[in-house]
């Protein structure tokens, strides 16, 4: 039997086997350390994602590359570390073109999972929207570079039967990407190729014909969580006075109206809600201008034209609390897929080059009564200050109303793991 040694994690004295990986030692003692690149069978550990960053003997470092030694002191769950990890995951979302509603790995994506675990509802970093290719050349798979987080898992772990590498890092620094050796990829068996897809923490490696195999609600990360009190908000004191009626406004900018549909999915509870809130400027009403100061404004959709920007600013001026509701308002959502493409190309394709375009047509709409289309689609927080974010495409109805009620009346609430999604 291995020698037992004494370590301390978050002030708790533990006895663990000497030399054991810190990630495993923590897990065996009921302590969850988030990670993206760590796989037990990859030795030495990659240490590439840094999401497992902890304070080890007083210094920042990745837990996955640490082997426990006598007297080791580790801090895992401090506000500073939690926020650091969250920032690291947010950076990954911002750096790549991660659009969960469009991704077939959604629900089985480790990056998404870390987002859930860490409660990432928006990013503090501006999204880069780099123009990355999707490589269709491999014989069996498609390499979606927009989704790669360069964790190195595939580089070190996907080998042919005779030990040849299939994936390699190419270029350096910010220009690094994971290249694929087409010749070696073609030699992988179907099972090996599928394993390559599974080992990828995101949807960067996709095998043709193996998609969308599990429905919503049954996918890997729909229901599982390592957190026991996931996303639970601090309980406020029980209300002793009747609820004051609040004023709510809603608007749909460059969205699909799915979030408004989700608002309605509380069904007949809507009749109870309208006892507690009055809808002012909203598609629910005919009210065009704010007549009174509004307690909360729910914004669906990002900004793709000048009118969206004006409307959003108008909401900011008139609402105490502004909530970005749904993927498009929070991150820009699926419409941001046009951000890496020149606007002129989008217009030409729609109006001049379509298969049903009139021969010789030269008209692209442009008129004094049409708002100007922006160079790209912007998330709401790029235009005005947003107070709260509810991601999801669309967010679950229960999630929306729990959050809104909490914001308006400070009600205790807890979002179920299955209710908090990006897709």
């Amino acid at each position, binding site marked *: 039997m291995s020698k037992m040694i004494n370590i301390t994690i978050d002030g708790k004295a533990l006895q663990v086997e000497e030399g054991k990986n810190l990630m495993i030692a923590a897990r065996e003692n009921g302590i969850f350390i988030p990670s993206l690149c760590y796989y037990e069978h990859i030795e030495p550990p990659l240490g590439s994602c840094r999401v497992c960053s902890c304070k080890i003997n007083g210094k920042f470092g990745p837990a996955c590359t640490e082997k426990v030694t006598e007297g080791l002191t580790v801090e895992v769950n401090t506000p500073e570390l939690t926020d650091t990890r969250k920032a690291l995951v947010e950076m990954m979302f911002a750096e790549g073109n991660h659009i969960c*509603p*469009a991704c077939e790995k959604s629900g089985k994506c480790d990056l998404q999972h870390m987002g859930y675990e860490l409660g990432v509802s928006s990013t503090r970093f501006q999204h880069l929207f780099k123009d990355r290719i*999707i490589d269709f*050349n491999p014989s069996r798979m498609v390499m979606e570079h927009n989704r790669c987080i360069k964790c190195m898992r595939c580089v070190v772990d996907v080998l042919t039967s005779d030990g040849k590498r299939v994936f390699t890092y190419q270029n350096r620094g910010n220009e690094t990407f994971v290249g694929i050796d087409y010749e070696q990829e073609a030699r992988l068996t179907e099972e090996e190729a599928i394993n390559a897809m599974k080992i990828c923490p995101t949807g960067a490696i*996709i095998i*043709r014909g193996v*998609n*969308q*195999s*599990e*429905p*919503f609600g049954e996918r890997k990360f729909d229901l599982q969580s390592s957190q026991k009190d996931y996303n639970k908000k601090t309980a406020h004191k029980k209300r002793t006075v009747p609820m004051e009626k609040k004023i709510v406004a809603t*608007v*749909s900018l*460059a*969205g*699909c*109206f*799915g979030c*408004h*549909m*989700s608002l*309605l999915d509380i*069904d*007949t509870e809507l*009749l109870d809600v*309208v006892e507690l809130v009055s809808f002012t400027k*909203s*598609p*629910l*009403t*005919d*009210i*065009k*201008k704010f*007549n009174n100061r509004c307690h909360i404004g729910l914004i669906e*959709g990002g900004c*793709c*034209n000048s*009118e969206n920007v004006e409307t959003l600013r108008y909401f900011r001026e008139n609402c105490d609390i502004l909530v970005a509701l749904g993927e498009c308002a929070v991150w820009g*959502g699926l*419409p941001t*897929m*046009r951000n890496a*493409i020149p*606007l002129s190309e*989008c217009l030409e*394709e*729609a*109006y001049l080059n*379509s*298969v*049903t*375009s009139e021969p010789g047509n030269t*008209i692209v*709409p442009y*008129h004094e*009564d*049409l708002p100007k289309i922006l160079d790209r689609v912007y998330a709401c927080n790029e235009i005005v200050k947003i107070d709260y974010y509810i991601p999801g*495409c669309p967010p679950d109805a229960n999630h929306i109303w729990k959050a809104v009620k909490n914001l308006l009346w400070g009600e205790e609430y807890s979002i179920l793991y299955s209710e908090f999604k990006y897709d």
Partner: protein
Amino acid sequence: MNRKIMIDPVTRVEGHGRVTIHLDEYGQVKDSFFHIVEFRGFERFIQGHPYWEAPVLVQRLCGICPVSHHLAAAKAVDQLVGIDPKDLSPTAILLRRLMHFGQVFQSHALHFFYLASPDLLFGMDAPAEKRNVVAVAVENRELAIKGITMRKFGQEIIKAVAGKKIHGILAVPGGVHKTLTEEERDYFLSGKQIENIDTMIEWSLAIVNFMKDYHAKNRKFLDEFAAFPSGHLGMVNQEGGLDLYDGRLRAIDSDGNITLNDISTDLYQEYFSEAVAQWSYMKFPYLKEVGRDKGWNRVGPLARMNICDFITTPLAEKERQAFIAFTGKKVNNSTMYSHWARLIEVLHCAEVIRDLLHDPALMGNDLIRKGTPRLKGIGIIEAPRGTLTHHYEVDEKGMITRCNLIVSTTHNNDAMNTAVKWVANNVISRSGTITDGMLNQVEVAIRAYDPCLSCATQAMGKMPLHAEVYNHLGELIDEKHKN
């Protein structure tokens, strides 16, 4: 003095629409426009992506009828893997149909109860604060609860097969990725947890009867308001019956003459062209052979009632007979009859859903089939608002190289502009002052088409309007809000 009346925003699915009405110095309408003010560029940015992601990706066009986009794309993608609609497994066809009819059922219920009913119950000139679903609930709680519950039923059907009420996933290339369990099926039949499908049929019949009563009292209004001749387009099955999921394209002119004779959906681009106007981001489809001026068609419930020979379910067919009897079997060109037609389709959907739920093949396990890959796929479906076309071309590697989408409301672009012109000419022209009632009539005319621009903000039935009057120098001289 020339004037321009601007109604802004007329809300829509993906943003807002806007109406401008131009008057001459005598107050006579010179012109009017229904501007579609948003552009998103799906047809371009989907290029370069794998075709199998299309059904999931393009459904984000719309949050009210995502199922229609999901399935139209799926039908196109089926062809890319070599599967024609008839070659899908029986279970896949039934599940997709169930999803689609659940979708049309909920969307029509949403439109009628949340959108149209305030206008019909309270009148076009009712105070603005009354024209919403909350007021409907206050005045007629039972009706509101029925409407909400009917929409919920459709949403629950979608959730059962797609996992999510909005933007769920059922279809994959060549089939579906899940079946329906006995437990899921019984949820809709037993009546233990939600009102069952038989209740939905009963309530659908009741609401059709409500509309018939309304018609008896308001026939002149329904006949005349925003009525104009036009073509009508939709899909029918091999026997000429109404089919919302699959079939052949048929169009007629305003007198009932065939202008598109049951063509295969694969051939649509040989028959249709789309014009572009400087003043709208939405295009104007029309039949090439008929020409730009007269070749445009209305689509949606009214058009479908006009072009089909019969409805395939008995109760709805009986109601269709009553519907067409009022026009003496002539083509119905009255905009406001769209609401009645829509409710007949609600009943039809409920009947189809009941039949599907009783079909044991719905719970089969033969889900996905494969064929010989092709480079082009065209999927056409009758979405709640009308004929919806998805067309994809790919390279040998499976990358989308071309995409063409004609959404239902695009077909109705000319019709909605004509409806706006009707209100402008008949209500606003020479009127001098603008009233809330006049503005609402513009909304009512547009709303009858349940435009997919309404899939966005109009979905609640409340199109907040703002009208501005400018003088010929472009100076704001009058302003009106509908509050």
